[in-house]
């Protein structure tokens, strides 16, 4: 290369400093990151689709699982998730407004909009924590068969779901919870459910109103409810009582359902959380006047891209986990 020859155009192309894509280095790298992160999330959601298609006839129905709204009792399918979606979209909007104010170098406006964005993110993360807690705690309880299938209970009169506490018999049984403090620490036992298997089985036998609902989805898109005779027969297969959800089993149905719920919404929640942290850092930088001195607010734009991406991912998680 003849470096002494300096014709203007050549130096503009190869000498550095130009931006062929019209975006600065930092912004471009943020886009690179977002594309790769999008592929990660797509991998998770595609894996979810895989497991779901594999168990298409027995997969839990989402709006029977997520029916809770904080401070309200009753059956409100999806309202709360819809609210969470709206909060996240709203905080995306305040973020764009912050970026827009940044372009115009209006520091106070940027501060306020960043603040609102952080609040929105915090509300979302809090809601997700609540959603997790409700999911883990469970609602109705169920039995698991030897083959790992989940049996839920419905009332024969109304067709409503029945919780174990509604019908389980109280038996005079010795039930020992193996804990470290009991002294027999080398015996490892699962945490005991509120009712023993026998109590639930006796409860079903003595209440003619109780029917078993299996995992299988019928043509109308509802779970199959067994007749009373089938119910009593099915009880012989029951192996243990399941309440709530953990990574091994859950009362909602397929084990993978809870695993994917924890994994995907957890991974997304972690993104939101780190987004809030990054937003906080930028927020304080704006207050300190870092970008005012720098002469531009591109940093706000970059975290904005990340924040919108988190919103974008949620739109997909919302669809594939709660709607479809």
């Amino acid at each position, binding site marked *: 290369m003849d470096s002494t020859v300096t014709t203007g155009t050549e130096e503009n192309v190869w000498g550095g400093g130009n931006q*062929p*894509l*019209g*975006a*600065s280095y930092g912004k*471009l790298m943020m*886009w690179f990151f*977002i*594309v790769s992160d*999008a*592929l990660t999330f*797509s*991998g998770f959601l*595609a*894996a979810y*689709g*895989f*497991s*779901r*298609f*594999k*168990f*298409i*006839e027995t997969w839990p129905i989402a*709006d029977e699982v997520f029916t809770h709204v904080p401070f309200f009792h009753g059956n409100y*399918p*999806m*309202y709360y998730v*819809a609210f969470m*979606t*709206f909060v996240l*979209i*709203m905080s*995306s*909007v305040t*973020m*764009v*407004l912050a*970026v*827009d104010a940044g*372009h115009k170098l209006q520091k106070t406006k940027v501060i306020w909009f960043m603040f609102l964005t952080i609040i929105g993110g915090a509300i979302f993360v809090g809601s997700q924590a609540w959603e997790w807690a409700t999911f883990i705690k469970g609602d109705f309880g169920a039995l698991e*068969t030897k*083959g790992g*299938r989940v049996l839920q209970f419905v009332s024969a009169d109304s067709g409503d779901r029945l919780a174990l506490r509604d019908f389980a018999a109280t038996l005079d049984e010795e039930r020992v919870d193996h804990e470290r403090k009991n002294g027999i620490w080398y015996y490892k036992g699962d945490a005991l459910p509120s009712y023993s298997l026998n109590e639930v089985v006796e409860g079903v036998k003595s209440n003619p109103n109780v029917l078993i609902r299996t995992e299988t989805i019928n043509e109308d*898109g509802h779970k199959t409810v067994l007749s009373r005779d089938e119910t009593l027969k099915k009880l012989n*297969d029951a192996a243990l009582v399941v309440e709530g959800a953990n990574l091994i089993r859950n009362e909602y149905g397929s084990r993978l359902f809870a695993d994917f719920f924890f994994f995907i919404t957890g991974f997304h929640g972690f993104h939101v959380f780190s987004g809030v942290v990054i937003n906080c850092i930028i927020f304080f930088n704006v207050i300190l006047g870092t970008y005012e001195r720098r002469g*531009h607010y*591109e940093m706000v*734009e970059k975290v*904005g*891209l990340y924040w*919108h*991406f988190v*919103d*974008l991912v949620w*739109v*997909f998680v919302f*669809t594939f986990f709660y*709607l*479809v």
Partner: protein
Amino acid sequence: MAHEHKLEIFRGLLKFKSNTQKIWGVLIFLTLVTIVEVALGILKPAALTHSYFLGMKILNWIFIILTLVKAYYIAWDFMHLRDEKSSLRRAIVWTPIFLVAYLIFILLFEADYIYHVYSDGFVKWNF
């Protein structure tokens, strides 16, 4: 930094006076789409749950298409891809679309195959 904003959405059907106004317009649109989605999800009209296209319920197709519409407006207006150079936009958008379409195609076909292995095979899974 893109200082000039393209202010029309819906292929020029709706043109806003300022960027701020456009943001609020997009918010209203996204909210409407979400409301439609949730309403359909709660009502589950029988006409949409009993008819199938390519092996999937029409209702689910509607959900997926509305999701893609929402994703488009988030990426184009909130992440201001609309204002970026088309080369950047294409690099960002088509790369994942191609890879994800491929992944979904392969995984869903494989899953359907496994489903048939389970349901048509001679091994009892439900006991």
